[in-house]
């Protein structure tokens, strides 16, 4: 399984009902169903991914995440996973609102645009970064809303989501401890956040995790 999905899976309580937005071929849900006794549904719109998920036995619904999440009822899932997808949506703030509505809890995995290597690429070479975390050239990237960890954490707060847990990733998507005491926003290739909607009864107050 993709390393960052391992991290995501580690944050999902066994037996959860999970909605996976941008599920790809359904790898995560397959794992959660077999290993964690979870149930759930994937969402994607890529034809090959949909067929692969169906072949794998993962229920998957073909829809446009940007405009059709009203397909899912209020509180109909325990948890919504948004893995490497938020930055590819048109309005990440709206998506977070939908996560709150559908489950009240979410796991968001996101690349960090402010990684030192990305900063250098722009600062020294004057070019948009291409890296293992951001592998596409600027004109062909699905990632239309690139942000730093500071930015996304600010957005979570604005969207009424409290960060309950944050796992920093290195540039290959593995859990890293290097950045824990250091300046995360500079050295992490990305992060996985466990979010709780404050309107959905999560404890109040947004902890600032960013250093």
């Amino acid at each position, binding site marked *: 399984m993709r390393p960052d999905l391992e991290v995501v899976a580690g944050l999902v309580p066994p037996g959860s009902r999970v909605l996976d937005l941008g599920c790809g071929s359904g790898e995560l849900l397959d794992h959660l169903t077999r290993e964690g006794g979870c149930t759930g549904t994937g969402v994607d719109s890529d034809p090959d991914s*949909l*067929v692969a998920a*169906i*072949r794998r036995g993962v229920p*998957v*619904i*073909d829809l446009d995440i940007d405009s059709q999440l009203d*397909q899912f*009822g209020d509180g109909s899932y325990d948890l919504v996973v948004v893995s490497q997808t938020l930055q590819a949506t048109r309005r990440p703030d709206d998506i977070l609102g939908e996560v709150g509505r559908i489950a009240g809890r979410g796991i968001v995995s996101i690349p960090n645009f402010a990684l030192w290597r990305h900063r250098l690429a722009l600062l020294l070479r004057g070019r948009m970064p291409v890296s293992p975390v951001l592998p596409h050239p600027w004109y062909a990237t699905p990632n239309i809303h690139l942000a730093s960890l500071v930015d996304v954490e600010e957005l979570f707060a604005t969207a009424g989501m409290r960060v309950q847990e944050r796992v920093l990733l290195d540039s290959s998507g593995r859990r890293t401890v290097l950045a824990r005491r250091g300046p995360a926003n500079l050295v992490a290739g990305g992060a996985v956040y466990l979010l709780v909607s404050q309107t959905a009864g999560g404890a109040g107050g947004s902890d600032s995790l960013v250093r």
Partner: protein
Amino acid sequence: MPDARTTYRLTLDEPLRLEGGRVLPHVEVAYETWGELDDAGSNAVFIAHALTGDSHASGTTDDPGWWDTMVGPGRPVDTDRFFVVCANLLGGCRGTTGPASIDPATGASYALDFPLLSIRDFVEVHRRLVRHLGITRLLAVVGGSLGGMQALQWALDAPDEVANAVVVAASSRLSAQNIAFSAVARSAIMRDPEFSEGRYDEGGGPRSGLATARMMAHITYLSEEAMASKFGRRIQDADEPRRRFGVDFAVESYLEHQGSTFLDRFDPLSYLYLSRALDYFDPFSEPGALDAAASCPRPPRFLVMSFDSDWRFSTEHSRRITRRLEGARLPTSFREIGSPHGHDSFLLDVPDYLTTVAAFLDRAHEEAGRAS
């Protein structure tokens, strides 16, 4: 190894009480099968046909089936691996009891005395057939259009009998526009001077009305794009238009042909009864409609599909089905397939669609193998 067509006929061993309350004392059902039932009885796939289909889902070059792209050796519904059953609908005219059958009470054909039918009645007949064949749980029910509605009803009513349901280009509730088309088709039949209250001799009756109904239905089965690419404004059988009211354009000739060939194989009364059953179909409106499936220890898995150019039952119809099933926490997959062919796509060679059904059934087969 598709043999020449063999159509079997089963007489139900008990009278059939219909959803509407009437009882049919004697019901025969015509069906065909392909492939072999395995020892565990776990590889049976029921094909539910559409409004004017019949039990001949799969055939040969000489005797083609109506779903040859889907059903056959090596195809998504693989008759080398699955035991496939397809039966005529109750109310039909191809071997299963219908309005043209003899009413044992009078010795004459039922005609309009035949009771009104529901999709659940179609399914009940097929459930009895399947039990008769020694199948307690179907690997899958697969259907398009009216067939998809049967697959849905079956999985909702008897979730322990259906491991997987494939619901293609269907609806759980016809729109006013859908019903309007149905109404015009029936009106063409019933206003035909030869309708005679449904009491006509075999081969006679409201033939022109039925042909008109079929012509109109065909328009709803194709997309505008499909018609444009198939016919455009091409002129038929002449160098230039005659500019009269006969057949000038190729599309007119096509509809004419569809209307007249239909007369050889379909009974106007069956058309009335079957189309009416569609109009009233609304399974999710029933209280507790989803309870049985949702509380089933092994709930059916659903694959719902639509085609983007289908305006007869648009994607919105399939999304509604998906929303209800998924909302009841039933394992449900949904795809909208890109296809230029309109509603008819479910019978055609649309690779993305066939690949998806194959993936779903491959998985189903694998799981059944693991369980047994």
